[in-house]
């Protein structure tokens, strides 16, 4: 396998223009001859599908939900970044580019990130034109706020529902095209295989989730926009249905998987209350602007928090990081909380949380002011936990939130399978080892509205595509392998529900491949995951049949893929013997507990090639060079 990033040469400011000029064009009249299959209808998938249809391509979309409006992009709260510099506070394309490369801990491709910053402004224009009701100033201009520790106000937002409004904007454009007959919509479909003909991606196999039928679709290119793999940890802030299946099956057909160990853990989530817990809810980290994080000094202190006097409290972030205090970056705050819990100083009935206390803020600025700033978050917390955060400290705990790794793609967003493209969180491209706040929406829409619609034309114009129908043997082979797997899941005769086995995997991943990783913990994971996989195939209980609507079967298939993928994630973490961004190897830290990179050995993308069942995957390397941003150590002490 050869990794050719196809990154343009020359000055970075001109690289995207130059590349677009060099891409061959498809004649407008010829576009309708090409059919594109788009899997996933979140920000990336919906925006790509609508835009390609506007250009004249035939498009078909697929999603697991009952409507294209429900993908998990909808849950993004904070906002979307752009380098508009409307607030006149010194922002620029270059600064957004610089912040994103640095925030990613120097593990992303410079040219991709520069392009992202460039098209960020077009995204805002496009969304406003669609009727997205962004927040406005009284004079009628767009509002901006500072977000995720950025020193400029570059985040555009629609209340705490920015993801929802951007997705509904993309969905409205997609529905317009469906109405015009240029897009065919397939809902309640789960992609279970990519069909490769003569080395090119030419179709997919889907399970029709209502009838259970294995359906085949052919196309001239296939686009995966199927989101991240955070649910390999069982509990995460992801939607319940989010999964790795589409990208994993593509990986098994030849698409390299890049940097799976880059996972982001968010420090301010509502903690777990019991074994039945099905998801973790994120609360905006703006809470740390006024809340103070603490745990009791004494282990397993049984007192109510209000009864614990100041001298018995450990405001550990303020103690350990006096300069930044409660505002240290996400990864540092998350790891510090874990350390407290490992010391048996966690609080709440499970011991799996720390306090976030607004007592001093209420005393300082008064309850009405606190309510004005954080009222909706306090209400949400109160609703979930039945505890009143105005009266007793909130309890928070870190949770898996976003995954920076994904299918390896070149500058054209094409994977190592020609004709198979990958967009949004599902690819690895722009965030390096850590994603900054309000950058996920930006990347999903950049890929879908402004990158893929150009690069896919270059692929079609420069590629010979034979005529293919779903009658081709490659489709028959893919269907029979999908059906065989379904039958295997149905026939184990076990007694354990897929969710129970998923929970077990989650424990292994969280304990050993979570916030702090060591060679020892990773080796533990690498021995426990295959054992659990074996247990899964002996003991999983899947009731019902394959020829009906069967959510237990759907879940089992996704868990089976997570059980394979989790091993690759752990292996990637073990071989990356450095700490960077969301990947923290405890052996590699500065005396202050910061992530310590090893740029001599690991300034590269690790892309894994699948070599067949039971065979070790092969690790390939794409070297990263930094010609425009000076590489430096992050420091927040």
């Amino acid at each position, binding site marked *: 396998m050869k990794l050719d990033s196809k990154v343009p040469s020359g000055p970075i400011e001109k690289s995207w223009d130059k590349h677009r000029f060099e891409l061959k064009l498809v004649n407008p009249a010829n576009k309708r001859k090409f059919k594109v299959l788009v899997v996933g209808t979140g920000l990336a998938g919906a925006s790509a599908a609508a835009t390609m249809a506007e250009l004249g391509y035939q498009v078909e979309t697929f999603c697991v939900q009952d409507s294209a409006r*429900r993908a998990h992009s909808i849950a993004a709260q904070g906002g979307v970044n752009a380098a508009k510099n409307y607030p006149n506070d010194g922002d620029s394309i270059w600064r957004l580019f610089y912040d994103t490369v640095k925030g990613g801990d120097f593990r992303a491709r410079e040219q991709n990130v520069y392009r992202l910053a460039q098209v960020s402004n077009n995204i805002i224009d496009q*969304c*406003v034109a*669609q009727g997205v009701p962004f927040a406005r100033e009284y*004079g009628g201009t767009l509002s901006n706020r500072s977000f995720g520790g950025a020193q400029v106000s570059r985040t555009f937002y629609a209340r705490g529902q920015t993801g929802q409004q951007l997705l509904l904007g993309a969905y409205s*454009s997609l*529905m317009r095209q469906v109405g015009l007959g240029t897009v065919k919509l397939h809902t309640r479909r789960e992609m279970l295989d990519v069909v490769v003909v003569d080395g090119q991606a030419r179709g997919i196999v889907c399970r029709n989730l209502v009838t259970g039928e294995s359906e085949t679709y052919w196309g001239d290119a296939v686009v995966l926009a199927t989101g991240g793999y955070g649910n390999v940890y069982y509990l995460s802030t992801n939607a319940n249905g989010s999964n790795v299946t589409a990208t994993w099956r593509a990986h098994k057909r030849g698409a390299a998987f890049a940097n799976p160990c880059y996972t982001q853990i968010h420090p301010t989530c509502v903690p777990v209350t*019991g074994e039945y817990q099905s998801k973790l809810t994120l609360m905006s980290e703006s809470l740390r602007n006024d809340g103070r994080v603490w745990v009791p000094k004494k282990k397993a202190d049984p007192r109510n928090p209000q009864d614990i006097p100041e001298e018995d409290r450990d405001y550990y972030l303020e103690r350990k990081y006096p300069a930044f205090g409660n505002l240290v970056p996400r990864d540092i705050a998350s790891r510090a909380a874990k350390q407290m819990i490992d010391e048996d100083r966690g609080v709440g009935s499970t011991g799996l949380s720390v306090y976030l206390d607004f007592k001093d803020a209420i005393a300082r600025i008064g309850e009405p002011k606190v309510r004005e700033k954080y009222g909706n978050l306090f209400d949400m917390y109160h*609703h979930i936990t039945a505890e009143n955060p105005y009266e007793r400290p909130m309890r928070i705990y870190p949770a898996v939130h976003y995954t920076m790794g994904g299918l390896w793609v070149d500058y054209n967003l094409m994977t190592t399978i020609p004709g198979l493209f990958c967009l949004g969180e599902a690819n690895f491209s722009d965030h390096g080892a850590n994603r900054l706040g309000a950058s996920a929406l930006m990347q999903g829409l950049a890929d879908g509205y402004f990158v893929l619609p150009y690069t896919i034309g270059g692929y079609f114009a420069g590629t010979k595509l034979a005529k293919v129908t779903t009658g081709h043997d490659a489709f028959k082979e893919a269907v029979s392998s999908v059906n065989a797997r379904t039958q295997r899941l149905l026939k184990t005769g076990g007694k354990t529900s897929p969710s129970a086995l998923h929970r077990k995997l989650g424990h292994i991943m969280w304990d050993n491949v979570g916030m702090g990783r060591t060679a020892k913990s990773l080796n533990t994971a690498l021995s426990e995951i295959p054992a659990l996989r074996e247990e899964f195939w002996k003991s999983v209980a899947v009731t019902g049949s394959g020829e009906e*609507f069967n959510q237990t079967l759907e879940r089992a298939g996704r868990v089976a893929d997570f059980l394979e993928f989790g091993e690759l994630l752990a292996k990637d973490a073990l071989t990356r013997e450095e700490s960077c961004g969301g990947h923290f190897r405890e052996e590699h830290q500065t005396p202050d507990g910061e992530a310590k990179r090893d740029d001599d050995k690991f300034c590269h993308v690790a892309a894994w090639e699948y070599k067949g069942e039971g065979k070790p995957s092969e690790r390939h390397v794409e070297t990263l060079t930094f010609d425009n941003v000076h590489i430096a150590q992050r420091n927040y002490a």
Partner: protein
Amino acid sequence: MEQIMDNKLMNLTLKIWRQKDAAAEGELKSYALTGVSPDMSFLEMLDVLNEQLVAKGDDAVAFDHDCREGICGMCSLMIDGQAHGPEKAVTTCQLHMRQYKDGDTITIEPFRAKAFPVVRDLCVDRSAFDRIQQAGGFCSVNTGNAVDANSMLISHDTAEKSMDAAACIGCGACVAACPNASAMLFVGAKVSQYALLPQGQPEREKRALAMRAAMDAEGFGHCTNEYECEAACPKEIKISNIARLNREYFRATLISE
């Protein structure tokens, strides 16, 4: 460890609508569920039931859900006759079992409407909403056409009003709650979002007529001012959006040829 609330586990009787597929006859079946924690969400309670059913070799109860944080609009359920259950302004996924007490019987049914046929058990087909949106729920602007975002000034209050309408999650509770199974609140919210904004003006009349016609074609009923939709809406979309839809429709019939 502190005990911050009464964590007494509950035993419940669940009466759940079971229906194999769209063509099959459905019926309510009773299930006894023990050990329900008040901290569970309603859907986590159903997860526990399903894990027990699957372990016994029975088919799990099918229900729609995804984000489990009240924003995707995928979850539904009529709980004791109320769309999204007894609590105001929450989706089923955000309803918690502390609303209930030991020994309670809870009846769980799918959203009922002619335009929302049952797919299986508690899942219904809400693709009618997609088709209404396809008829006119958009601004016809291709990618790349847009001018600079700040070249169009929109007052703060107008943007906020539009956002109030745009907050709709498309769950269909308004339809399920309405005795006529009308979709006027859903359509009213979408028409309002655009009618209030300058971007929506070029297609204002066309949109009101087309979406209204699509709604009727899907078999939704008419509005008779029951206000049930507003009461059931998890995002508190206001009935004034229906009034605006009526005005927009009336205006469009006068203006258009």
